[in-house]
């Protein structure tokens, strides 16, 4: 495989791995924990490095996952004390741990391949150079670890789908039925940490947040069903990753940054053009409702005065402007629309209902 294809493959795999736990973070209103975790895993990596003195040690990986879970636990500890609200607790805990990590790097690990820039940005472009052999194949390390995280997340989702679903949408019922919410919560958080650590190396902490939150948020505008939400999130994340890669190549800019920007762009697109919840769809719906209501007003008005003595006045188009307080342009448009739909007919000066128009008015 050439490096270009490999980079895109890595990005797609990581996007998919992030989207799976991301859906539940968004649904459970814990999206900001992804912000906290994706920053603090760095402290776990640094501590693992300082203890083992090697960048290849599994201690880095384990330390990072543990630190993610510890972050969540600390946030709950601080907010559980009743002294600080949860949002402020998140805002207290992760900057402290992240600062510690950044300082430890600049003091004790600045000379090795650990620097604060790649922490935020990641260096996806270099990922294909770090290779391992897996199942007899020579593959980029990030692809293997990313695929590992993706499969693990997928298996966990498959095994605990029912529990997660229930605990997300009806936590009280889930607790009554004997699922332990704490266990599900920490299970999810472990999965988030694991994914963040895996993705972190290649794409940096900011893109981890973008890939965990933006595709599920986008998909949430498009569907109401959980399975579709998950599928769409994965697909959107993967598309954003590929689009971001090509944008970055085209303009010669940061790959991770471009991918994050693309996740924002696809959210905007969905927000504008989503079938039912999109801005355009809502505006159209609003216009249709307005027109429908106006047609009903018009036909009812005509029905009331049909055949009565003042019909020649009441049913004159000009009178509508006064009686119904419509703008002249609007009244004209509505009358034309009613004629098009065969609800009214112009007879000389006045408007007459057709049979269809009478039925339409009585339908109200």
């Amino acid at each position, binding site marked *: 495989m050439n490096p270009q294809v490999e980079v895109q493959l890595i990005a797609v795999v990581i996007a998919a791995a992030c989207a799976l736990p991301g859906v539940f*973070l968004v649904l459970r209103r814990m999206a900001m924990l992804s*912000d906290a975790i994706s920053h603090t895993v760095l402290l776990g990596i640094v501590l693992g490095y300082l203890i083992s003195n090697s960048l290849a040690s599994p201690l880095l990986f384990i330390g990072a996952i543990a630190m993610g879970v510890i972050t969540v636990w600390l946030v709950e500890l601080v907010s559980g004390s009743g*002294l600080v609200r949860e949002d402020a607790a998140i805002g207290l805990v992760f*900057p402290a741990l992240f600062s510690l990590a*950044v300082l430890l790097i600049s003091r004790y690990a600045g000379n090795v391949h650990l620097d604060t820039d790649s922490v935020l940005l990641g260096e996806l472009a270099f990922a294909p150079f770090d290779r391992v052999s897996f199942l007899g194949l020579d593959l980029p390390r990030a692809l293997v670890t990313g695929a590992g995280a993706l499969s693990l997340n997928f298996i966990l989702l498959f095994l605990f789908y029912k529990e997660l679903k229930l605990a997300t949408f009806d936590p009280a019922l889930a607790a009554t039925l004997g699922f332990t919410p704490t266990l599900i919560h920490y299970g999810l958080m472990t999965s988030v940490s694991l994914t963040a650590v895996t993705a972190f190396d290649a794409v940096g902490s*900011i893109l981890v947040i973008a890939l965990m939150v933006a595709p*599920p948020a986008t998909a949430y505008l498009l569907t109401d069903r959980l399975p579709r939400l998950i599928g769409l999130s994965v697909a959107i994340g993967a598309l954003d990753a590929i689009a971001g890669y090509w944008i970055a190549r085209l303009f010669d*800019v940061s790959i991770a*940054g471009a991918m994050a920007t693309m996740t924002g762009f696809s959210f905007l697109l969905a927000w504008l053009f989503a079938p039912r919840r999109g801005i355009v769809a809502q505006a159209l719906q609003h216009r249709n409702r307005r027109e429908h209501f106006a047609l009903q007003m018009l036909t009812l008005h005509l029905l009331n005065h049909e055949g009565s003595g003042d019909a020649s006045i009441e049913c004159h188009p000009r009178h509508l402007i006064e009686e119904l307080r419509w703008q002249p342009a609007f009244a004209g448009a509505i009358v034309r629309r009613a004629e098009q739909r065969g609800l009214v007919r112009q007879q000389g000066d006045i408007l007459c209902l057709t049979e269809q128009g009478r039925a339409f008015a009585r339908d109200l």
Partner: protein
Amino acid sequence: MELFTDYTLRNVTLGSMLLGAISGLLGCFAVLRRQALLGDAMSHAALPGIALAFLLTGQRNTLTLLIGAAIAALAAALWLLAIVRATRIKDDAALAFILAIFFGFGLVLLSHLQRHPNAAQAGLKSFLFGQAAALVERDLWAMLAIGGPALALVLFFWPQIKLISFDPDFAHSLGLPVRRFEILLTGVMVAAIVIGLQTVGVVLMSAMLIAPAVAARQWTHRLETMALLAGGFGALAAFIGAWISTLGEGMATGPVIVLTMSVLTALSLLIAPERGLLWRRFRLVRNRWSEDAA
């Protein structure tokens, strides 16, 4: 007192204390109004504003860059508000989304600037984690120009802002233009964030809004005392942090300041009279003891 006589050190000292005091004081409202994480999102969102301001004007003038940062942070806050109002996406997801998107876009712009090198762009990267040692006198004036009016506005509308922070519904029933004051407070928060960007950096600036206020809250029940204490804590932490960071080579100022502030906050949470965790434990033990004695 070399800290106040040496030119560089004086700028560092005064600059960081100014930043700590203003952000600490103004951060109280963010914490009381449960908008702590809005500060985080807005401070990350300032990055593309800095880069765009530089791209458009080609100058590394502090005030220009900070105004760019403020506009980007405000745009982020508005977009966030629109998402929360118009869609069913909740505030936590909207915050994380805005934060990542704006910051990602900022990184795109920064990487673009780096690949088209230009002597003036050197140092834009220090906005990530802050570099207090690079503060010059002009920067202090820029900080004052932004922070001063914000502070004055807050002092002028103090009673109204106080009421809105604690009971917006009651304020509304009294006929106060709550929405306008909320916009004002968001603007004030942006000002507080922006003045810290050079010293603390976009990544960690939110901590300077949140931590001093949380620490101060533990020591008092009065807003006035809390605001003054928060300003004091912020200034103290920023001063100690900036000073430490000038000692070591390559130590970004932001993390040192934030870590210092975190220690102060942790201590406050533990030992503050009445509310502190250790204090409460101590009182429990003492009460048990006196019960046993009786």
